[in-house]
C-alpha cells in the first residue's frame, strides 16, 4: 500500500483501555518505525501515550476493552461525544472478550468468590468505597453502550493490521483488511 497522502491538517487521535489488558495498545506500539510516520500525520489527545486526562474534540477514537463497570461507561460516552469516528479495537471491545467470561456467572458469585471465600481472606468484604466504580452485571462489548463506527477484531489485532486500518482511515479510504490481516482470535 502506498504511504497515505497527508491530510490537510493533522488528525487528532485519542485512545483508551477499558476492560482490556493493554495488549491492544502494545500491539499498536508494534507498528514500530511507522510510529514516526504516524506522528507526522496525527497528534494524540487523551491516550496512555500522552498525559492528557480528559478527551477533547478528536477525529478518531480507539477503544480497547469492553465495558465492565460504571466508569467504563462514562469514559466510553465521553469518547463517543468527542470523536467523529469511534473504533472498537480488539476482541474485548468487539465482543467483550476474555473479561466477558464472567457473564455466565452471577456477579454476586464472582465478587464473593474473590473477596470473601478465597483461602486466606478471612472476614473479607466486598469493597464498597464510593471512589470505586461499581461493576455491571455483565461485561458488554462497546457497541451495546454507544454507537461504534468501525470494528477491528483480533486478540490483539496485529501491528500491521492496526497500521493498515489507520492509514486507510487517514487517507479517506474505507478501512479494509485483507485476509492475512483479519483475525478472529
Amino acid at each position, binding site marked *: 500500500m502506498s504511504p497515505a497522502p497527508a491530510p490537510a491538517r493533522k488528525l487528532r487521535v485519542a485512545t483508551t483501555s477499558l476492560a482490556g489488558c493493554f495488549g491492544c495498545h502494545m500491539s499498536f506500539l508494534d507498528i514500530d518505525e511507522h510510529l514516526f510516520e504516524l506522528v507526522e500525520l496525527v497528534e494524540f489527545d487523551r491516550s496512555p501515550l500522552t498525559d492528557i486526562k480528559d478527551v477533547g474534540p478528536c477525529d478518531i477514537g480507539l477503544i480497547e476493552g469492553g465495558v465492565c463497570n460504571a466508569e467504563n*461507561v462514562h469514559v466510553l*460516552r465521553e469518547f463517543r461525544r468527542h470523536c467523529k469516528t469511534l473504533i472498537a479495537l480488539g476482541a474485548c471491545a468487539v465482543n467483550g472478550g476474555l473479561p466477558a467470561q464472567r457473564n455466565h456467572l452471577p*456477579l454476586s458469585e464472582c*465478587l464473593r468468590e474473590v473477596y470473601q471465600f478465597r483461602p486466606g481472606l478471612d472476614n473479607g468484604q*466486598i*469493597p464498597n468505597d*464510593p471512589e470505586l466504580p*461499581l461493576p455491571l452485571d455483565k461485561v458488554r462489548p462497546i457497541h451495546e*453502550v454507544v454507537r461504534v463506527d468501525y470494528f477491528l477484531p483480533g486478540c490483539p489485532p496485529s501491528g500491521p493490521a492496526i497500521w493498515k486500518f489507520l492509514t486507510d482511515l487517514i487517507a479517506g479510504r474505507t478501512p479494509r483488511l485483507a485476509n492475512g490481516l483479519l483475525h478472529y482470535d
Partner: protein
Amino acid sequence: MSALPATPTAALDGVLQRHGHCPTELLQILIEAQDLEGWLPAQTLTHIAQSLHIPRSRVEGVAGFYSFLYTQPVGRYRVLFSDNITDRMLGNTELMDALCRKLWIEPGKLSEDGLVSIATTSCTGLCDQGPAMLVNGRAIGQLTHRRINEIAEMIRQQRPLELWPAEYFQIGDNIRRKDSLLNLDMKPGAALAAVIELGREGWLQEVQKSNLRGRGGAGFATAVKWASARNASGEPKIIVCNADEGEPGTFKDRVLLNSYADLVFEGMTLAAWAVGASEGFLYLRGEYRYLMPQLEAVLTRRREAGLLGHHILHEPCFDFDIRIHLGAGAYVCGEETALIESLEGKRGTPRIRPPFPVTKGYLGRPTVVNNVETLAKTCLIALAGGEAFAASGTAQSAGTKLLSISGDCAEPGIYEYPFGVPIARILEDCGASDTQAVQVGGASGVCLAGYEFQRRIAYEDVPTAGAFMIFDGSRDLFDVARAFVHFFAHESCGFCTPCRVGTSLLQGFMDKLADGHGAKADLADIDWLDRLLKNASHCGLGSAAPNPVIDTLQKFRPAYERRLVSLDFEPAFDLDAALAEARQLTARDDPGAHLHTHEEEEK
C-alpha cells in the same frame, strides 16, 4: 402410537429390524423409536448407534437437529401450539397461557409428574382453521377457550387421545374455488395409461409443450428437470415428492394429500416413466403425520391395482414404487438438497450445488425433486395434452395455481386460479376488507401494500409457492415482520455463519425495537444485516430471511419509526439496572452508584 411390546429393547429391535438396520433409515428409526417412550433416552441412542454400526455422535447429531425429536423427557401429553403470525392474530398466545395456567405449568417446561409439556412450534399448515395445535403429533384446529378448557380437563384425567372427541381432529379441506386441477375427477391409472401409450419420449415432449413450471417456489421448468435426470448416468433413479410444506401460511399440499392423493402418486409415477426411475419417496413433513395411514392405504390400493410395483399396467420395463419418509419439524428440509440429506437419514444441512440433485441426489443417484402440486398437475397434461395445459394462465406461467389463503378475510381456504389473477380479485373473492397488506409466498415471499393490489400472481410478476396471508388495517406490519424474523432465526440450520448469526442478530434488533429501545442507528444496522443475509447465505433460507424486513421497511416504515426512542443510538438494556446487583452487594446508593440511560441526564 403403536402398542408397547414386552420390553422397550425388544420393541426397539423390532424397529431396527423393520428398517433393515440401515443407516440411511436413521431418521425414520429415531422417529419410531421415540414413539416407544415419547422421547429418546441416551441408552436408546447408544443402542441404535451400536446396531447400525455408526458413531454415536452421528445418531446424537441427527436426534439433536430435528425439533420433533426429544433427547430430554417431554410430557406424556406433548402440546405444541402453532405459532405463525396468523395463529397469533387469532389469539393463540392467550390460549396457550390459559392452558398453561389450568395445568399449572410454564411453557417449555415439563410438569413435575411428567404428564404434560406445552410449547410453540412453527406453522403447522392449519392457517385456515387456526389457532392450531399438535397433541402428540395429532392436529387440532379451531381452538377456542372452550376447547382449551376441555383439553385441560382431558389431560388432567389422562384420557387417551383416541377417546378425545373425534371432531377435534377433523381437519377441513376448505376448498373455496376449483379450477382444472381440483375439478379433475380421474380414474386412478388413466393418466398412466395415456403416457404409456405415448412412450417415454413422447410423454416428455408433452410435458415440455405444457410449459409446466415447479410449484414449490423456484418455478423451474419441469420438463428440463426430468430430461436432465433422464440423461444423467447412475441407477436406480429416484423421484421425490416434496411434501415438506413448511413455508408459513401454506397448506395446499396438505389438501392435495388429503383428498387428491391419487393424483399426487400418479404424478410421481408419470415422472418415473419419463425419467426411467424405479424408486420414489414422499417426504412428508412431521406435522402431517396424521395423514400417514390414509396415504399408506392409497399406496396399497394402487399396488393392488397394478399402478405401482412390478410391470406397472403390464408394461414390461416399468417398475416403480413409493415409500413415505417422515420429516420431524425442520423447515430447511423443504430445500431440496437438505431434503435429500434428510432422506439419507442425516441432519438436514443443504448441500453445495452443483452437483444438482438431477445428476447426484439421493445416495449420489439422479434424483428429481418436485413439489406435490407440480406432480399432481402432470396428470392434467397426461390426460389432455401439453398444449391444452399451456393454453391457460399467462405467457410465462402456464396453468393454474393453488393458493392457501389465511388471515383477515371471511373465507380462508384453498383457491385455485389460472395464473395471471390480480391480487385485488382474490381479495374480493375471499371476502377481505380494509386490507392493508398481503404477504404472498409465505415468510420468504413478498409483502404487498395497497398500491400493488393490481399486480398479478404469475412467475413474471408476483411468484408464489401458494401462501397468501391477509392483514387488515388493524394489524401492525412491524409485528408481522418480527414474527417472520423469529421464524427464520428458529429454523436456521446453523450450518453457515451469515445465516446462523445474522438471523439471530436481526431478531435481536427487531426485539430491541419491540421492547422500546429502538434507535435510528438500529435501522442502519438492520439494512446492513439484510444485505449480508441476502448475499452471503449458503441456501435460500438465509437469503430469504430478511425479505419481510426489507419489504416492510420500504412500505410500512412508520411502523418502525414510531418505535424509535432515539434518533441516534440507544442501548438495548437498562444501564442503571445493570448496576443493581453491585449496589445491593455493596450497600451503596450514592450518585456514583447509578447510571442514567441517556448521557444528557448525567449532567
